[in-house]
């Protein structure tokens, strides 16, 4: 059984979170998912501030980021991640309800690695999350320093 990879899931919606976790659980990815409920928490976690000042070492292999969140929104979180020389190597997948082109364009401009519109149909949503999780957490070679237990074996 392969070692789990840490996935950062940033979304203010508990329902979406439950649905995403349900989907990831299918692939046994759920245990390593760190759920953060808004942009502030996400930045605190990534920059080891506040309640996350003493969090365990290692960076997530992928960040699943919602855009529309209270306080600090997803685009701001993305800007700070991609503006930090250490964090910017972490793949960021924008997962949002928005089909607005401006969101899409801005996300890619700020350096998002993928942009996924959350489908309404649960089946499609489930499939999307599953594929995103599988690709980024299982198949993609993460940058050095990421938490991927078997990456050293080679």
């Amino acid at each position, binding site marked *: 059984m392969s070692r789990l990879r840490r996935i950062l899931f940033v979304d203010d919606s508990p*329902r979406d979170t439950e*649905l995403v976790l349900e989907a990831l659980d299918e692939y046994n990815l759920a245990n390593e998912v760190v759920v953060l409920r808004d942009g502030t928490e996400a930045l605190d976690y990534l920059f080891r501030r506040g309640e996350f000042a003493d969090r365990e070492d290692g960076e997530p292999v992928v960040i699943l980021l919602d855009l*529309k969140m209270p306080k600090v929104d997803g685009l701001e979180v993305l800007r700070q991640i991609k503006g930090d020389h250490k964090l910017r190597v972490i793949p960021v997948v924008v997962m949002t*309800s928005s*089909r607005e082109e401006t969101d899409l364009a801005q996300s890619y401009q700020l350096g998002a690695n993928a942009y996924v519109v*959350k489908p*309404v149909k649960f089946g499609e949503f*489930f499939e999307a999350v599953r594929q995103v999780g599988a690709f980024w957490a299982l198949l993609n070679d993460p940058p050095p320093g990421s938490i991927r237990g078997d990456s050293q074996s080679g």
Partner: protein
Amino acid sequence: MKRVKEKNNSRTQEVGVDNKPSGVFLQQSGQSSHLATDNASKTPADSELASASYQKLFESVPGLNLILSPDFRIIAVTNSYLAATMTEREGIMGKGIFEVFPDNPNDPNATGVSNLRHSLETTLTTKKPHTMAVQRYDIRRPGDDGKFEVRYWSPINTPVLDDKGAVEFIIHRVEDVTDFVALKKVQGEREEAARELKDRTRQMEVELVLRAQEILKTNQLLAEREHVSEQLQSLVEAMPDGVLVSDEEGRIVLVNATSESMFGYCRGELLGEHVRTVLLDIDSSLKEEILIRDGQCLTGSASETTVWLFGRRRDGSEFPIHVAHGRLERKEGRMDILAIRDMTDLRRAEAEIHASEARYHDVLDNMFEAAQILSYDWRYLYLNDAAARNGRQRKEEMLGRTVMECFPGFDETEMYRVLKECMDEKKRIAQDFEFEYADGSVVWYAFSIQPVAEGLFILSLEITDRKMVEAETQRLNTILDQKVRERTAQLEAANRELESFSYSVSHDLRAPLRHIHGYVDMLERATRGQLSDKAQRCLSVISSASIEMSQLIDDLLSFSRMGRVEFFHNVVSLDMVVADSIRALESEITGRNISWTISPLPNVLGDPIMLKHVFVNLIGNAVKYTRRRDLAEIEISCYAELDGQTVISIQDNGAGFDMKYADKLFGVFQRLHRNDEFEGNGIGLAIVQRIVTRHGGQMWAEAEVDRGAKFSIRLSPPTGTPALAGDGI
């Protein structure tokens, strides 16, 4: 020294002619007897006289005579000639006359020999007597000193003809006029007593000599002059001006052809008539003109005077003429030469010009615009009534005064500066001016300033009302601008609000739907096999309702976006758009039996993504509404209209619709079919129409229930997009 003096010295030439000898025959001494006498015709006296006696007789004849042979040798001479020329008969007989009487070598201007030779030769040629002018012909003194004495002669040479008419002899007769010519010397000695005589003599002498010389020249030129005279006559005849010549009494002595036709008279009718017959008031006019002329031109250089008169034709009609007058003073009397030109046409033209000028003047005086002419020293040279009204002064008070006098302080105004510029640089300027009167009132004038010879010609029109309207318009425009700006800001704000709203709809409305769907799905998984069929169906309905709701939201957002987003303008190949659209509809087409007829389509200018949306929708409809046909027929065709626009049609043999509902076709959420017949939400065509409209095109549909529908789009050629100009569409 002895001289023979003739009694009558004043008319030498006549004396010579009168004394012409006739029937004098000589016997040349030293030569064979030469008797020209016809014995049969001899008078008794003749026969009694011996030839020697004749010779004696001849030699004694008073008067200075030589008989010359045709080769100008001296064959007889009178005693008085010998005495007058200080010669001896023996010394000169048989000798040539020029040998005996050579020119004075001390007088370089001596003409004696040449003139005498010419006269003698003329006599030989013409066989007629030839009178020479008074001739200075100096005579050599006898003796050895060889000195010459000044002598003046008046000679006449007369030929003597033989039976055959040939010249046999020439009688050379002269008068010694030396004393007469030299009389002044004598007179000089008695100066005090005879001054008058002396003067007269001098005058006479000079006149005599000059006149004599003139006659000689005149004689020589006579033949030539006759020829010239003929030419002059034909020139006068051919002159385009009428020519009349009148004598001292004003009687016409010459008429040319132009005069004849001008006055309608024959030449014969006019000759001898007074010029008054055809020239009215000619006497007084000419008199006046000539007086004026003579008074002005003391030098006498003016040879011509011109006057305007009226001429009268033979039929009594009168017409304006212009007469040039020349006067010829001759000893025979005065002659007036009149060159006449018919001025009827010119006078008429002048009258017309005058009338026209008067008319313009009248118009200028009375026209609505103010007109004025300013001199270069700023004086009013002309003002029309309107200009005086504008000046608020009487015209008479303004004329001749300067603008500064009429309007104190004028030289500090902008108007002055501009007018000065026009004067200095001869510039034309049209400009509006605000003019402040002494009472403080302000009036606007539109000035049109034009430099003319006298200074400036200025047309002005009061435009105060117009200026006020302009100012009001300006004010209103400013307000309007402000309002437009405010409204634009409001609209921009509303637009931003709408965008924000759309964003919320897009994001926030979709999330609950997703949750509904997601949790129903989880519920189904959790209760698999435990729910009744009815409960199972309820969950299924909830799930599909959420899907429909999601689709509605997407379409509404899309419709809204069509009105807002910026369109790209590219050259788009409709062939490719149609092919892409059909490919996008693959899932709907799969398993269907469709016959496609697709014509080659043109390129148009537009937004490729939007145009694809249009065709996906229209072709999709055609596919959808032919679903119940065993063989669906879909035709995509196009034609070009005269103005270059393109109409593209998509026709099917599907369900069609009732044309009485056609107006609902493009409304949002409007449907012509029930959902259980053909699914749909009634937004598709509304979006399509909005896209077509935003491309500057039109869209319409024709259909018949159960026979099919035909949707057409007219796409305009793009305007105001320079990049397109060269692109073929």
